[in-house]
């Protein structure tokens, strides 16, 4: 039965439209996970005492979120191979990965906007917590001021809809594009035994 289902399918017929369900499902799941982690860590930082350490919870959560979101491309290809077409090519996997990254970024930006309505003080409180953490660091005042300025604008930028989309889509998209290609190598069936 499975053989019958895949018979006649070819990677040549795959279009962006075919990729959208996989990109949307995986993008939706990963955007919820990463947004929830970011929010949890954000509130943890707001409610905790400034540590004065370079490695604040939000710095670490940024790396964790980045690593988790990298799996999006691989899993989107896995979903596509399982549900749509097992014969996906390397370039099509790359496009699917990019699309998944883009969906993830857009949805996360939308959640962020919604959260700004639910808790309008969230961004300001996070900026204040970040500043308090830098102020607790042991370093010259001039360096501290420069760091406060850059970190405060970075936090605001992360929570701004347009800026997170403008920077997020290329960066997350390209990272997931690479993992999408990895996904093809792991999950896709070969139409023939062609080698490079």
């Amino acid at each position: 039965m499975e053989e019958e289902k895949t018979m006649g399918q070819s990677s040549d017929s795959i279009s962006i439209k075919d990729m959208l369900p996989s990109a949307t499902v995986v993008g939706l799941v990963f955007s919820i996970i990463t947004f929830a982690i970011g929010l949890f860590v954000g509130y943890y930082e707001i409610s905790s005492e400034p540590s004065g350490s370079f490695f604040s919870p939000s710095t670490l959560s940024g790396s964790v979120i980045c690593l988790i979101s990298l799996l999006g491309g691989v899993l989107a290809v896995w979903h596509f191979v399982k549900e749509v077409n097992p014969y996906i090519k390397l370039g099509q996997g790359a496009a699917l990965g990019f699309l998944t990254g883009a969906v993830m970024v857009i949805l996360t930006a939308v959640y962020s906007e919604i959260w700004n309505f639910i808790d309008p003080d969230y961004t300001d409180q996070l900026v204040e917590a970040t500043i308090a953490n830098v102020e607790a660091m042991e370093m010259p005042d001039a360096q501290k001021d420069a760091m406060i300025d850059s970190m405060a604008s970075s936090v605001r930028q992360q929570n701004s809809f347009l800026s997170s989309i403008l920077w997020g889509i290329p960066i997350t998209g390209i990272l997931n594009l690479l993992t999408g290609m990895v996904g093809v190598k792991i999950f896709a069936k070969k139409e023939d035994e062609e080698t490079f």
Partner: protein
Amino acid sequence: MLNRMNTPWVERKGFSHWGMSLLWLVFVFLTSQAVVLIVTVAVLYATGAVSTAEELITATQTRLDVLFIGNSVGQIFVMGLASLLIAGLHTGTETKLEFLRIKWHNDTVFYMVLGGILILVIQPTVMFLGYLNSFLPTPEFLEELHRSQYQMFEDYLSSDGVLLIGLFHIAVVPAFAEEVLFRGYVMRAFEKSAGIVAALIISSLIFSLFHLQLTNILPLATLGAVMGLVTWLSGSIWPAVVAHFVNNGSAVIMGTIWPDRAFAEITPELLPPIWILLSSIVLSGVLIKILYSKSNFQLKT
């Protein structure tokens, strides 16, 4: 089997030509910055110019001669030679050199001469476009970046005896490397995917954005479009290489002889008179018409 070998690798693997070229541009952008840094640090340490981390940080901001060496190495190896290799992924029956239009025709010299003249003739129009560009809203940090780039060029070109080496770093190397990347590789990849008109427009926009000078986007895109047009009409990148060299070379000479004027912000007082601007537009149009009418239709398609 033979048919498959005639199909470009990007098509066999389900990539689009334009998508692959955008990916390559991202790679080139990041790698060339890394190469500049590695070469600069290596040269500074190897020549004994620095011995501590603090000296190194200061030297990366002051030793412009070394920074330019790093930049040229990055351009030659990443933009030029690596793009030559990556072009192999897009070729089927044609060779990499044919794909990049690195070839010579009987009329190439004619296009080289006219391309060089066209770039000189179009300069007043380009200046005017630079003035128009100043009315477009630009983020402050990009304006600052542009100012610091210009300041770096001004400081470098104001050093003693820098003309020849400046011509090499700013005119010769970019003329080859950037033409291979933008007119050779990117334009051709977009042409394969979307046709020549889209390829000309997109490659010239990418060319201008790649310079990270949003405050100069109109003049740079215009120059990119002119060089793209010359490449397409001649079927060879050599006329665009010459045009690029003439453009950058004249800027280096201007910057060395009249730095105050060359690096000044464009104001209405510094703009050429209206009759020169109009003559530039008309003459450029005439030259493009001549190039077009002389062009071989086979090459255009």
